[in-house]
């Protein structure tokens, strides 16, 4: 038996080749009046306070380890991104999505749908209460399992700051073997996708806390300066 840790890491995720553009993208810098410098706004009309607690969306208690996930959303200069939409989706504690296409033979949880949303507050903070997701095989036949992860969708103050990403959990042995997590620009960037256990975010007797801060990239700071 080969110890798993002795296996070479997989190549970074290349996705589906026929969907991957071949031409280099064109820089928006040629258009100083670009609409992409502004972005959509969201408000209380879009989100109910209860949308951020994924454990309270059904009559019963979901199965699994309750967690809080919280942090700040800032731009590259550290300025808070306020009042913007953060969306979260994930598998349940057994590693299955409440999605008709997920055929992984792990149980569905009638008390867990795995989708939530919230708005960042005046300091750029967000906070979810949810269930720690389970790992699951990359495909039906695979011996490769995806590490536990939360999918996040975030908006910034500019459409060009749009971000869809995933948060991983600290100390997960599957991370070193996950091609998707490793598809980051450089190895150090993977650290920025891993939440940190933070006892200060624990709900005593109820939930474990993880802190994960998000930095929204682009547009280049010099470009946006004074533009709005």
């Amino acid at each position, binding site marked *: 038996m080969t110890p798993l840790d002795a296996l070479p890491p997989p190549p970074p*995720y290349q*996705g*589906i080749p*026929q*969907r*991957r*553009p*071949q*031409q280099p*993208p*064109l*820089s*928006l*810098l*040629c258009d100083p009046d*670009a*609409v*992409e410098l*502004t*972005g*959509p*706004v*969201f*408000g209380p*009309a*879009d989100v109910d306070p209860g949308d951020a607690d994924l454990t309270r969306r059904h009559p019963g208690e979901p199965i699994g380890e309750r967690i809080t996930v919280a942090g700040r959303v*800032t731009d*590259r*200069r550290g300025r808070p991104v306020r009042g913007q939409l953060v*969306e*979260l*989706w994930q*598998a349940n504690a057994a590693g299955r*999505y*409440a*999605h008709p*296409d*997920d055929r992984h033979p792990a149980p569905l949880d009638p008390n867990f*749908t*795995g*989708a939530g949303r919230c708005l960042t507050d005046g300091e750029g903070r967000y906070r979810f209460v949810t269930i720690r997701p389970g790992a699951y095989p990359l495909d039906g036949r695979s011996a490769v399992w995806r590490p536990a992860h939360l*999918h996040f*969708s975030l908006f910034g103050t500019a*459409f060009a700051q*749009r*971000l*869809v*990403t*995933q948060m991983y959990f600290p100390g997960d042995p599957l991370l070193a073997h996950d091609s*998707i997590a490793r*598809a*980051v*620009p450089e190895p150090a*960037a993977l650290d*920025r*996708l891993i939440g940190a256990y933070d006892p200060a975010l624990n709900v005593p007797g109820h939930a474990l806390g993880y802190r994960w801060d998000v*930095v929204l*990239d*682009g547009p*280049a700071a010099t470009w946006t300066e004074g533009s709005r």
Partner: protein
Amino acid sequence: MASGTPPQTVGPYFGAALPYPGGGDLAPAGHPEAVTLHGYVLDGDGAPVPEALLEFWQPAPDGSRAGAPGSLRRDGVTFTGFARVATRGDGHYALRTLPPGGVPYLAVCLHVRGLQRHLFTRAYLASPADDPLLAAVPEERRGTLLAVPEPGGHRAYRFDVRLRGPGETVFLTV
């Protein structure tokens, strides 16, 4: 300067979380100026991409870029500037909106399973000679950004997105 959080693939199961009722109905109900923008998302083989999510951001008809909350829960009246629409099984999407003010295009963000990160492009409803971005696009590729008016005067435009290969859409980056 903090380093940005890297993107990760949207994955196959976002359909349970991101689409919402009325996501493609940006125009207020029954608005006489409403236009339809529709088309297909196609891969390098010309095959439809059934699991794509398109997001649109645009100025209001008066040119305002301030936007308005209420994009996720449409009230049928407010123009918010933001729309989100998924492709169906045949790769087709459709958006009902109002013509943007001040610029001739809608900004598009495209999320596709099988890509490491989302893509940006623009759907131009007209092609003015003085548009700085269009002017920067090689002439032979400019057409990929132009929505084509549908015949018949239905205020409808066709805008296909080709992810790869011949006729590959021009994608944008900051």
